[in-house]
């Protein structure tokens, strides 16, 4: 006889019955069961029991009363976690501050870089037909984004399947007159009627289909419209372009987005200038961008394959031999480094990915800080963990708690980071040459990615400390200080510190390399004089201007030429059948006067400099640079004098040789250069000013010039400023580098600071004992620093080759670059040492100075 009530009924009862009633009911039933079993037998008793249980199925026995013993709800524990987190944050202000600011800086940099990268990668994507729009470019002696105006009409005839063919001619500057007011405007373009069908700009007024069809029409961007006409509707109003043409406003578009390779303040209809253009020759100085939209299924390769025949048919075999037309996908234009001379400088994808890499490194540094500080901190909280475990916390709950605290800190950091990004956005344009608006932050894709970054940060920063902290043995954790000596994760922490040092050093080396390359660009010997030389458009009546300049006491020297040394302007083919060079090569042709060589201090290595030619002199004497004669196979400069060359299709005699000077930016190798006298091409006036009274002299020149050219605005540029402008792209990149590596270094230093301060607190007693036993302050500081110096050296061994490899790769993009010498590495390690020393020594000196009586008194 089992004497047990039926299991099912028992279970049923315990399941449905309210807990506060269960015991008495079970007891009563059990009692009756036993009695029934005795009186009527087990079977009957079981029946009875079951029946009685079922009878208890009444609402009042199901109803739960509030429990007498507290059973914590899930939210109660959460509340506790929050309370503890809040207390920890408050209790350890410096630790929390370092963590939150470090993370905020890291996140801010990350978000900013993400916005930049996103902007870069989305270039020209806003055009609906972007994936089948191509720019027709030409590859002859060089890659050239502009093709002759002759190509567009021929293309229309021979490729009727092209959906759109659009001619676009960019101009650097223009003078606009509205009423009596004159404006000097940068960048505008002539564009034909199909242009609005290729590029989807936002039209505020005017009809995009017709606005650019008629001659003498102008389409303004919103900013320009407001500048010229204020709040008045500009449609149908007239503006005057370059004192020549009256244009009617036929449309207004919204300002261009930041992510387009185009750049213009207004568009003038192509018809306005078409009749002035050379529409026949394939090789022509005149040329513009040609955009074509291909039909949906047409492979660009198949169009490109027909180009040789197309050139042959329209311009003959001779041209076809040297030239090739290419289709450059619209979305690639921004990244194609082969085309250096275009409206907006291309940026290599490597630079952009490099920037993304920097973002990754920064967020990693911030996370390492967090992990380091949290694991060091975990020791302090071992008691809390021990108690929690003793009270029955599961490991999962402890992991959750730490992750929750991490989330709280990261959340605070995110808010700070977003505020920082908002505050920084207006500076992205001047600093990085990228326009970003706050509205981009609200886009769903951006929000999703930022949340992703935040989530990853939480996991990166929180998971490891969570597992360390939750893994403490409760007994060990509760035994005070037992964990101090055997901190788990100490080696991991060392590894992370090494990684962080390495990152910092790579950043420092990178910044130093970029800095010295920048310095090399701007300050290194260009082969010509560039100080205090100002150049401007010669304008009308150059002869009168010449007299005026002679009379100006502040002018040291002046020269008329087609272009200054660093202004590349005019390329032309050259060869020398006499010296066995039949094939054409390309040379720069500068048309200069007799003052050019002395003023720019170009060094003659052989022969005679340029002399003035009188009208009617038909001799063709030229001065060439060393690169050109080397190309001809002449090694000794003096041997070149008197030799014949063909330049631009004409015979010329070399009368002198100049030492190579930088005629373009340092991105490219110095090319062959020919200087010759030609008074018809003296478009540019360059004046060397005396250093005294520079302003007055310039004002005087401006007055004289404006007197001669009353309808124009005087615009000048200093040569050294012009040279600096050539390296704008690098300057921006340098800025970005400085900014972000600065952030990485700050984060790293903050982490180190926090780590040392935690260490100092943990070792207070040890320091006290050491001092009592006679240790000096210096030896204690050394005790703290020694370890970090070792870690730093190990990090350097890792960082140096990596940085060298990366920066060498970057430098190779430039034809002329510095060599990465040991000085840079030495400087890097010195800088890291100083940073580490400053951060470590503050805390360690503070720890070393504590009176041992105080630190040893308690406990």
């Amino acid at each position, binding site marked *: 006889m089992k004497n047990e009530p039926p299991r099912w009924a028992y279970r049923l009862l315990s399941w449905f019955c309210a807990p506060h009633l269960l*015991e*008495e009911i*079970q007891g009563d039933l059990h009692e*009756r069961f036993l009695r029934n079993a005795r009186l009527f037998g087990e079977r009957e008793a079981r029946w009875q029991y079951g029946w009685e249980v079922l*009878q208890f199925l*009444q609402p*009042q026995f199901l109803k739960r009363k509030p429990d007498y013993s507290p059973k914590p709800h899930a939210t109660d524990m959460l509340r506790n976690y929050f309370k503890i987190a809040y207390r920890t944050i408050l209790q350890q202000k410096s630790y929390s501050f370092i963590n939150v600011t470090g993370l905020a800086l890291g996140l801010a940099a990350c978000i900013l870089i993400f916005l930049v990268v996103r902007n870069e990668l989305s270039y020209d994507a806003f055009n609906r037909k972007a994936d089948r729009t191509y720019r027709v470019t030409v590859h002859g002696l060089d890659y050239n984004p502009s093709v002759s105006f002759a190509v567009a009409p021929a293309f229309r005839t021979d490729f009727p399947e092209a959906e759109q063919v659009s001619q676009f001619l960019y101009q650097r500057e223009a003078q606009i007159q509205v009423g009596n007011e004159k404006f000097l405007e940068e960048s505008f373009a002539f564009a034909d009627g199909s242009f609005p069908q290729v590029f989807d700009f936002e039209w505020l007024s005017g009809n995009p289909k017709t606005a650019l069809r008629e001659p003498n029409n102008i389409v303004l961007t919103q900013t320009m419209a407001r500048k010229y006409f204020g709040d008045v509707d500009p449609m149908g109003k007239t503006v005057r372009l370059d004192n020549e043409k009256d244009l009617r406003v036929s449309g207004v578009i919204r300002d261009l987005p930041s992510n387009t390779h185009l750049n213009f303040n207004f568009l003038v209809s192509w018809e306005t200038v078409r009749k002035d253009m050379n529409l026949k020759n394939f090789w022509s100085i005149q040329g513009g961008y040609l955009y074509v939209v291909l039909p949906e299924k047409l492979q660009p390769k198949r169009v490109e394959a027909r180009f040789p025949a197309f050139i042959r048919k329209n311009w003959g075999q001779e041209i076809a031999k040297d030239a090739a037309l290419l289709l450059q996908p619209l979305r690639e234009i921004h990244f194609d480094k082969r085309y250096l001379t275009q409206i907006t400088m291309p940026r290599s994808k490597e630079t952009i990915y490099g920037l993304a890499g920097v973002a990754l490194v920064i967020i990693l540094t911030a996370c390492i800080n967090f992990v380091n500080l949290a694991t060091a901190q975990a020791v302090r909280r071992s008691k809390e963990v021990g108690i929690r475990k003793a009270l029955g916390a599961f490991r999962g709950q402890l992991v959750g708690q730490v992750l929750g605290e991490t989330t709280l800190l990261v959340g605070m950091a995110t808010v700070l980071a977003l505020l920082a990004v908002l505050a920084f956005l207006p500076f992205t344009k001047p600093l990085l040459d990228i326009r970003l608006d706050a509205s981009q932050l609200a886009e769903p894709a951006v929000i999703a990615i930022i949340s992703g970054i935040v989530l990853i940060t939480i996991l990166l920063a929180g998971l490891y400390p969570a597992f360390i902290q939750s893994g403490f043995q409760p007994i060990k954790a509760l035994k005070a200080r037992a964990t101090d000596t055997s901190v788990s994760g100490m080696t991991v922490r060392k590894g992370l510190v090494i990684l962080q040092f390495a990152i910092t050093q790579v950043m420092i080396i990178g910044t130093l390399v970029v800095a010295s390359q920048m310095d090399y660009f701007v300050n290194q010997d260009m082969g010509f004089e560039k100080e205090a030389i100002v150049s401007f458009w010669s304008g009308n009546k150059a002869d009168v201007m010449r007299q005026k300049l002679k009379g100006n006491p502040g002018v040291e020297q002046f020269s008329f030429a087609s272009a200054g040394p660093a202004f590349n302007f005019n390329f032309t083919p050259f060869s020398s059948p006499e010296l066995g060079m039949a094939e054409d090569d390309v040379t720069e042709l500068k048309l200069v006067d007799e003052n050019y060589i002395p003023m720019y201090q170009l060094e003659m290595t052989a022969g005679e400099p340029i002399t003035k030619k009188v009208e009617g002199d038909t001799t063709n004497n030229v001065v060439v640079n060393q690169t050109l004669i080397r190309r001809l196979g002449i090694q000794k400069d003096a041997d070149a004098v008197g030799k014949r060359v063909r330049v631009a299709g004409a015979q010329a005699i070399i009368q002198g040789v100049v030492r190579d000077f930088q005629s373009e930016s340092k991105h490219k190798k110095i090319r062959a250069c020919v200087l010759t006298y030609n008074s018809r091409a003296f478009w540019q006036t360059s004046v060397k000013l005396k250093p005294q009274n520079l302003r007055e002299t310039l004002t005087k020149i401006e007055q004289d010039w404006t007197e001669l050219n009353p309808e124009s605005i005087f615009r000048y540029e200093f040569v050294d400023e012009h040279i600096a402008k050539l390296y704008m792209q690098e300057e921006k990149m340098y800025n970005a580098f400085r900014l972000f590596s600065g952030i990485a270094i700050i984060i790293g230093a903050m982490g180190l600071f926090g780590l040392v301060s935690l260490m100092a607190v943990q070792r207070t007693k040890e320091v006290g004992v050491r001092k009592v036993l006679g240790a000096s302050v210096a030896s204690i500081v050394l005790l703290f620093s020694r370890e970090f110096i070792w870690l730093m050296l190990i990090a350097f061994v890792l960082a140096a080759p990596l940085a060298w490899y990366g920066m060498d790769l970057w430098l190779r993009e430039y034809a002329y670059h510095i060599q990465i010498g040991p000085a840079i590495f030495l400087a890097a390690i010195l800088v890291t040492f100083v940073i580490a020393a400053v951060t470590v020594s503050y805390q360690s000196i503070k720890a070393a100075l504590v009176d041992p009586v105080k630190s040893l008194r308690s406990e």
Partner: protein
Amino acid sequence: MRRSYLGEFEEVVLLTVAVLAEGAYGVAITDELDRQTGRTVSISAVHAALHRLEEKGMLKSHLGDATAERGGRRKRLFSVTVLGSRTLHDIRAVRQQLWDSISPQGLPVVSL
């Protein structure tokens, strides 16, 4: 006078608790009812009535000792509160008053 609502069964249970004095708990009450009234009472009905009465404040309870025959579970022992006692007295008084008001001829007498 405020009327106290007591059902007939509740009243009987309450009285039984009073009868059992110290040892009033579920099983004992059920058995006593069985014995005194001769009707079969289900244990759940008794429990329900007891708890209702406790909610009404007529009974109070405490947990007693555990016994082996209950599988180690404690009994809930009930006792009548002052309110319960007054209510019982009230009911009894009303009844008494009613009995007293019945004229001798008012009720048919069962004759032998």
